[in-house]
């Protein structure tokens, strides 16, 4: 069985080699009917890709039909590249996969002509070629999804970074003003960047201001508590400020124990406390009054 497969594929390679130009021309025609996107891609670029694909396919198919094999590495890499570029250009995954699938008709025509007198060999080769092209087509879809996921992950990371501004209020005092809904992932990033900032700025007090947070659920409240505990383990105090009445009610209803955590109504109260704890005090300099006297 194995030997016949190799023979058939060797002949697939030779078929491609013999009829390269006609397959290429027909394939390009096929694509212009089905999925050609001249708005997104130049004709010459597509021609180059098709030619490269055929050459790589001819070379790899001599070794078998397992697309995960090392012989298919250059072909896989090329498809990966194509998918990545097409994601950026705005192709749909269907259009990207059709790049591979649309070669079927021209290639099958060539196979049929080559095996004119032997229907069994022809059927067998068509089947193995179909399988091969299907896996390659699916590979482009996988690659497409992978590059999409990369884009999404990068955007998520960017967003997370944007949403966690740790600011220094005073020597040794940090503040983290949180705005918007807190989910578990975001709270975790917030927690990490706050703790990192505590070390970097050598701050003994950190204020987490949740004035801009509309609701707090159990998970988020637990994360906040964990942040406070982790900061304490590192040797810093946390104050939570800006607790809205609804959030205070939720916290009590949920049975979350905030007894060990210092909370203040406003950021300014928290800042006052932080200054006091750090040994700073305020004196108002009323120069105007002095002059009047």
């Amino acid at each position, binding site marked *: 069985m194995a030997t016949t497969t190799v023979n058939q594929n060797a002949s697939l390679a030779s078929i491609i080699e013999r009829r390269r130009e006609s397959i290429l021309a027909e394939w390009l025609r096929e694509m212009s009917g089905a999925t050609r996107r001249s708005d997104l891609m130049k004709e010459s670029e597509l021609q180059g890709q098709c030619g490269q694909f055929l050459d790589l396919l001819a070379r790899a198919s001599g070794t078998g039909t397992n697309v995960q094999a090392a012989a298919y590495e250059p072909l896989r890499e090329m498809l990966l590249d194509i998918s990545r570029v097409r994601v950026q250009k705005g192709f749909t995954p269907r259009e990207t996969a059709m790049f591979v699938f649309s070669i079927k008709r021209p290639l099958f025509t060539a196979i049929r002509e080559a095996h004119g007198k032997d229907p069994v060999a022809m059927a067998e080769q068509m089947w193995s070629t179909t399988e091969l092209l299907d896996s390659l087509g699916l590979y482009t879809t996988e690659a497409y999804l992978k590059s999409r996921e990369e884009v999404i992950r990068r955007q998520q990371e960017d967003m997370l970074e944007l949403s966690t501004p740790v600011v220094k209020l005073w020597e040794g005092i940090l503040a983290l003003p949180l705005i918007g809904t807190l989910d578990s992932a975001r709270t975790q990033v917030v927690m990490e960047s706050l703790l*990192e900032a505590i*070390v970097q700025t*050598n701050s003994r007090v950190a204020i987490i201001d949740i004035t801009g947070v509309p609701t707090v659920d159990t998970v988020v409240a637990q994360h906040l508590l964990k942040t406070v505990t982790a900061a*304490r383990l*590192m*040797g*810093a105090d946390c104050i939570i400020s800006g607790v809205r009445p609804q959030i205070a009610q939720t916290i009590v209803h949920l049975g979350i124990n905030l007894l060990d955590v210092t909370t203040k109504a406003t950021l300014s109260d928290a800042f006052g406390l932080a200054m006091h704890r750090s040994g700073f005090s305020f004196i108002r300099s009323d120069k105007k009054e002095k002059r009047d006297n």
Partner: protein
Amino acid sequence: MERIPILRMGEYLLVTIQVDMHDRLAMTLQDDLTNRISETGAKGVLIDISSLEIVDSFIGRMLGNIASMSRVLDADTVVVGMRPAVAITLVELGMSLTGVRTALNVDAGMDLLRNSLDARKDALYGSRIQ
């Protein structure tokens, strides 16, 4: 046998943990430290763990034990320099080391020990002479 060195600085003992401790080494440190506190009459112990890449429940328990034991021997303990990733993990593990005092770094830790010793002296002898 491998041991973690304990330095003496006046009324304080200083320990810097710089190796990934196996459990026996942690237990030895606990023994050595309690012995040294009672020998020297030290009033404070500072443990610098800024080099530690993880603190698991065993090392966490050792730190808690040292703090409790030194309290019995009339010495304060402060653990300094825990890394953020280590702190997050320790909290997730379920250990909050209640009863262990902490500080960001050796300087802050020494301040804490001095202030606490001053406060104790004040309580004993009244206002100290400046």
